[in-house]
Structures are given as C-alpha cells and as structure tokens.
C-alpha cells in the first residue's frame, strides 16, 4: 500500500476532523475549574481590550534617562546625595554616604501636546508618542530583581503566583483554538525570574505562558519524531480520536478536542512565526535585518542577533493578536545598568525603538490598536545617584530604585497623549498621583472587562487574586 492509498482509506482524515471542530465554539472560560460565583459571569463589564502585547524591559529601565526628564537633577549633577532622601533608602550596591547625584547625559525631545517626551535615544517612539499614556509615578516595594519582576508580572514578590497573562487566560479563556492564549517571546539575555514571571502559579498549568523558541520549531514537540511520516501522524491522530469517540464522557471529548488542536497547532504555530509572507517593506520598518551598531563590546543587552530577535518578536506579536492570542509577552533583557549606562542604554534603545514604534503604527493601520493594549514596562527605576559601589572609582551606572519608575501604555481603551503622575524634581519619589503595581494590575484587568476584586481563586484557605489585598483602577487614564 503506498502512502496515497493509505491516506485515501482514512475516513475523512484528521484534517476534516480538525476543521469540523475548530469551527465550533472557541474554548473559553468554561475551562476554568472551580470558579467562584463572582468569576462565572466574566466579563464583569464591557471590555475595551481584547488582546495585550506586554513588552517587558527586564532589569529596571532608567526612568530619568528615558521617560521622565529631570533638568534639576542635571543642574545638580555631582552634588552629594541629600541625606533626607538616602537615609531611609535601601540600595543594592550604592554607598549612600558617598553617593553623588548623577544627571542624565541624554536630552529629551520636544514634548507632545499632552506632555509626552522621550529621550533622544528613542526618536521613533517620540514619533508615535501621542498614542501613549505615560505613567511617571509608578512605584514598588521590592528593590531586587527577582522579587520585583515577580511583583510586576504576578502581583506578588514571592514566586508561585499566576502571572497577569495566566489570570487573563483563566478568566477569559482562549479566543483561538489554533494558538495558545498566552505566548512568551524573549530576546537578549535571560530574565532573572524566568518561568516565575509567566507561570500559572496555582492555576492549572494550561494557563501558563508558552515560551516560543527563537530557532527551530517555535513550540516544543511540534515536529514529528524521526521515522514518523506525515501519513502515519495523521492516521495516528485520526485513530486516537476515533478510539476516544468509542468512550463517552468529558475526558474523551477533551481528548478529541486536544488532538484536533494539536493537529492545528502543528500547522498554525510555524505559520504564525513565518514572516516570509509579510511585506518586505514592513519587515524593514520593524527593523528586521537592519544594520546595527558595530561596537557591541561590553553590551549587556544581548548580541548582534538580539536586534533581529526583538524586531521579529514585535511582528510575531502583531500576527498573534490578529489571530486572537489573548496575551503576548515580549521580554528583552537586560536593562540592569549598574555600569556603562550610556553605552548600554544606547544599544538597548536601538534594539527596541524602531520595532515598538512600527508595532504601534502597524496595529493602528490594521485597526487593531483600539482593541489591543500595548504595554511597555519594567520592574523598577534607577537611582538619580551614580552607582558608587565599593571598589569603583567612577560611577558609570545607576542602582535599583523602587521609589519611582515609568511605564507606557497604548490602545485598548486608554486615553491618548496623556501623562499621569510625576516624580519630584530629582526623580526620586513618585509624588503626584502615585500608582503602585496593584493599581496598575487592577487597571489592566478593568480594560479587559474584569473587576479585579471578583476574579479570585481559593487557595490555602483564602481567595487569591492578582491584586492581592490592594489595587484601585486608575480611572484618569481610561478613554
């Protein structure tokens, strides 16, 4: 029997099976297990956002060098750190007794009508600045990377909690059968918290972020094992489904659904990361295969490949939200610039500036920005002091600074060209409309139609939620 005859004997084939069921109702919130009464009626209110592209700058991007201009700090560059500020401050490395103020070496660009301005390192983002809300008054309580990354991504500084994407997947389900609800793409070096930042914690692990590989197959186990030809693979899936049909019950139905989705994933995942069909000019606009700076020595943000990786990830993110993926998490590491801040920031900004700006324009052009929330965030800011840790003679970087940092948000039911909050004249404290991480999370859930107080899961004797015991929706930034 040759392969063609073999296939012809298949009763409809897995392709037919897959098509039949894929046209049915999308998997959704009914997959949740043990939901509380409050979480069965999701969404709680009309959502503004359907998808989210969450760009995470791992390591603590410097607010005072990129987003929050502080001319007074520049004027007082080199002065001793004010005792009133540093006395009760904990540092990772800086020596508070001898630390000096360090102004930014970078100029800021002409602000938009709404007051948004970016550093000269981000010229293309300045070109789309009027699409953003900029929160300049973010603050956190965790001052080291691992807990702080976890806090921003999961609402808790302790590991083991579900990430933001997991909560959305759990609460709202998956809009697409062919792709995961929550995908993770990385560029640069590794993030400290790793899977803790995209894990599902106490939620079922199918709500964890699926990490796409940069090379080879994007998802693990997409490729058939050696020796298994497409004919046999299709026949296997068909037979598994047919055998499951002989049984009754929920597990048999789930098995059929999963094998059909697995069959679909083998086609859809390679397709979604395959950029060959994209317009070459658009690819170029994203910065794919663009010439990059020659001197990468000492750079902590990756390698020459990182530029393409990040550009590609941004475009894949757009393709994913087009296809219904709920939450796409892009990571770039590291922005932890204890030294050589100037060079590291220049190169890191070169990595992200063009791709993110093009992503915003591309989403807008396709009519997706209104329903897609784009977030650019980091775990904390950096000190207005130069880092003078023991043994250094010259401060060329900044230490961790949880008291103030900035995040950018665009689309998905937010205002445009709007700045919320602010820091003091040195960028030390969030003084105007301070926003903590829980407020930030409550607002994100709100945009997806979720009341953060009502999306809970009972664990260890109490109702757990993304916002822990805190969080207020920031109504000022909602459109």
């Amino acid at each position, binding site marked *: 029997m040759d392969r063609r005859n073999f296939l012809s004997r298949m009763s409809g084939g897995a392709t037919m099976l897959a098509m039949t069921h894929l046209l049915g109702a999308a998997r959704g919130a009914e997959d949740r297990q043990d939901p509380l009464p409050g979480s069965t009626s999701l969404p709680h209110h009309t959502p503004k956002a359907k998808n989210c592209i969450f760009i995470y700058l791992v390591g603590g991007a410097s607010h005072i060098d990129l987003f929050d201009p502080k001319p007074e700090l520049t004027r007082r560059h080199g002065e001793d750190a004010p005792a009133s500020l540093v006395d009760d401050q904990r540092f990772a490395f800086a020596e508070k007794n001898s630390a000096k103020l360090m102004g930014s070496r970078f100029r800021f660009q002409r602000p938009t009508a709404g007051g948004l301005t970016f550093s000269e390192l981000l010229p293309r983002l300045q070109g789309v600045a009027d699409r953003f809300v900029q929160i300049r008054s973010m603050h956190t309580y965790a001052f080291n990377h691992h807990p702080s990354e976890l806090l921003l991504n999961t609402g808790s500084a302790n590991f083991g909690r579900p990430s933001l994407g997991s909560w959305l997947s759990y609460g709202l389900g998956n809009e697409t059968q062919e792709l995961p609800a929550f995908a993770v793409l990385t560029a640069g070096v590794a993030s400290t918290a790793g899977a803790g930042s995209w894990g599902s914690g106490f939620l079922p692990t*199918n709500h964890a972020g699926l990490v796409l590989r940069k090379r080879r197959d994007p998802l693990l*186990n997409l490729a058939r094992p050696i*020796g298994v030809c497409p004919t046999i693979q299709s026949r296997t899936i068909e037979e598994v489904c047919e055998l499951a049909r002989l049984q009754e019950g929920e597990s048999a139905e789930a098995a059929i659904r999963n094998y059909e989705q697995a069959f679909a994933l083998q086609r859809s995942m390679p397709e979604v990361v395959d950029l060959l069909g994209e317009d070459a000019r658009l690819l170029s606009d994203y910065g794919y295969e663009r010439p990059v700076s020659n001197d990468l020595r000492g750079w902590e943000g990756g390698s020459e490949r990182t530029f393409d990786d990040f550009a590609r990830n941004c475009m894949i993110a757009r393709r994913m939200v087009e296809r219904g993926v709920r939450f796409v998490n892009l990571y770039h590491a590291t922005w932890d610039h204890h030294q050589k801040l100037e060079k590291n920031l220049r190169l890191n900004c070169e990595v992200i500036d063009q791709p993110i700006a093009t992503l915003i324009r591309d989403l807008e052009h396709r009519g997706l920005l209104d329903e897609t929330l784009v977030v650019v965030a980091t775990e904390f800011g950096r000190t207005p002091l130069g880092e003078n840790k023991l043994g250094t003679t010259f401060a060329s970087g900044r230490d961790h600074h949880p008291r103030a940092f900035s995040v950018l948000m665009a689309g998905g039911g937010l205002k445009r060209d709007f700045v919320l909050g602010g820091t003091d004249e040195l960028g030390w404290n969030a003084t105007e409309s301070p926003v903590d991480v829980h407020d930030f999370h409550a607002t994100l859930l709100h945009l997806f139609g979720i009341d953060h107080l009502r999306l809970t899961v009972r664990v260890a004797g109490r109702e757990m939620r993304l916002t822990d015991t805190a969080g207020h929706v920031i109504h000022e930034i909602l459109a």
Partner: protein
Amino acid sequence: MELEPGDRLHFSLGQSGDDWMLTMGRFQISTTNSDLPLVDADLPSQPWNSQQGPSSGASQDPLFEYYLLRDPHDQQLADSIETFRKLAPDDPASIMAMVVRESETRRATRVMERGDYESPGEVVEARLPSWLSRELGGEANNRAEFARWLFAEAKPIVARVLAARVVQRLQGDVVLRPEAGNSWVAPDEALQRQVNRLAIRFAESEWSFKHLVRDAVLSRGDSHLVTPHEHRAARQLESEMIRDTLLAQSGLLHRSIGGRSVVMPQPLGRSEGAFSRAEVLPTAAGKELYVRGLYVWWQRTSPMPFLVQFGTPATNQCETIRLETRTAEQALSLLNDPMVYDHIRHIALNHWRSGHQESWSDQRLLEETSLSLLGRDPTSDEAERLEALLTELRAFYLANPELVDDILTGVLWTPDSVQDRSDLAAWIMLTRVLVNTPDFLKL
C-alpha cells in the same frame, strides 16, 4: 530412579532471565527407612524435619545459618549481620536517639511583611491556635504537646488526613471540599465512614502505607468489597507518574532509591529566556536519564517542560489536589516528544519480543499491550479498530521499508528479517496510538 537408604538428593530452585539468575532455595533429601532422620556431618545438628514443617522457627534457624555460610551472596549478608551484632550495644537502653525538646530560650520569630524576607515585621509569640489550644485543655503551647495530639489514639487526625489523601488520589473522590467562608464540606457521608475506617486500620497496622493503600483499593463506600478492576478511577496520572509509567513499561526505569536530584537535558532554546542554572549544571547521562520523576531536578526559572505540561505546579505551593489539565500541548508531547517516543518504541519492543518468544496471537499481544498501558483489555470495538489498524500498518511498512529503518534507529534490539522489522514498526505505531488514548493518562 531407584534409591537406596542413605542416598541423598540435592535440589536447587532458581529462576533465570537473559543475564541474571536468582537462587530461590536449595535443599537435600536423605533417604532412609527409619523413623529418625539421618545425621549428616555437613548439615546442621537440627535438620529441617518435613513432619515438623516450615512454620517451625526453631528448626529453620540452623538451616538459615547453614546456608548463610555456604552461599557467597548469603555469606555477605551473614557478615553484615555480624557487623551489626557487634555494633549493637549490650544494653539496648543505652542507645541514644534524637528527640524534640523545647529550647529554654526561643529565637524571635517575626512576621515577614507581605512575605518579603527583606521586610521583618512584628515579633510573633509561640502559641497554638485558639481552637487547638482548647483541644489540648488550654495548657499546652509547645510542639511536643502538639505532636502528641497529632498522633493521639483517641483522635487519629494524622491517620485520617493520610487516609483521605490516599482515597483522594486512588479514587478521585474529594473527601473534603473548601467552601466560602473558611468552611469545609464533606460531600459524601459514606466516603467519610470509609476514610474513618481506613484511618483506624492504618494506625493499627503500625502506620503501614502498604497496608493503607491495599485497604483503600479494596474497600469503598459502606464497606462492601470490590475487585481492584472495578476501581479504575477517573483521576489523571500526575506528570511524574506519567513519565515513570512510560519508563517502567519500556524497561528503562532506573529503580534506584535515594540520591541527588538529576538535571534533565533541556530542549534546545527552551530556557534561553530564563536565567537558569539548568544550563550550566551537568545534565543526566546514561541510566540517570531514567530515574523516577521524583528525582528530576526542578529548576524554578525553567522547569522540565514535560512535567509542566502535565500539571506539576510551582513547587513552593502546597497543592492538596493537583488540578487536572487537558491541553493540546500534552497531546503534542505524547505524540512528538522524543523522550516519550523513545519509551514507546521500547514498550512495543518488549511486548513484541515476548509475543514472539511465546508465540502469542495478535489478539493476545494486543491484550497484553493494552493491559500494560491502559490497565485493561481493549473493548471489542477497540480491538476491532486496532486490529484493522495493525493490518494497515503492516502493509504500509512492508511497502515502505526505508521508514522502518528510521523508526528502529536507536532501538536497543531489532530483528533481522524485513518481515519482522516491518511488523515491529507496525506494533510501535500501534503502541503509540494506545499511549495517546485518554485511558493511558488515567490512574
């Protein structure tokens, strides 16, 4: 055979495999027409009297000692016993043992604000919860009292918790379900009674888990006994057990107990986004690859994908009930994961070789394979489908021998003839179908 009085017959009972032999017992019979046994200088002075029977410990001891001195393996055991005898003190009361004792000074224990180890808060005094304090008469406030209460015969709470956990895992029945407002409900009264009985017998059996598990499997509800076969529970195997099952069935499982956790090789590109020691630690090789799931190193920032896909939760969370998940990624793992595929090939090989050696029919081989993977025979409808599939697969691989070579590459043993090779390939693919059916994942 004709025997004369005084003749001796030597018997040796053994069991052998391909590369091993187990001595199960040896004995000799001396023939006599007397009522008295023959006295043999080579035998202990009190030989085993068949009329006395094997239940007599007094008669077995010398025999045991006798063989201990003659078998090289048993000689080693005898040496070990002697060593322990020498180590044992004359006065057992002099043996020292670790015990828990309350310290006279207590270390200050603080609340860590929001769980942050960097943020120590107020000092917490040692005391028992008020409900527990009432249980203990309001006096006790230390761990020793608490430990006594936990294991009190009057209220075997630990035994009951463990029994409930075993029942929950074996039967898939939830013994207690959390409700809003910090309360718990028992959904099934009969189940409560079953758990209570199991707990009592568990404590009475000197906390024998083996006894408890057997008891739980054999009893259900209002004490009517059922066969284990009726107890095919609906719960999904836990991820570690799925891996262990595949390993055990393939004959690859490394059964050693104890030792360090083993870092499994990370799939290429899987952990590049996460700061991960798994990338720098030496990874498993050889038989270490086949240790039980219990010993797989859990890298928090980049855990083993197979375990995550099948629901191993974050290890810092206390999960009394593993949440079952059914996902397309699991299907992809069972279909395509190179590790799973390798195990499937060896599972099929084991059954196929047994079938060949024992001249099993296809039906028998199918039943044996199904029993080992699904814990049951195939139904008639399933058997009909699978036999038809087998026929198709055989024809397909006979016509496509180049695919057979690919399938058998890396398998520990392969047949020579084209016919056998294509037949084995067909059985491998059939086994792959069985591993992917829903019942394979059930406990």
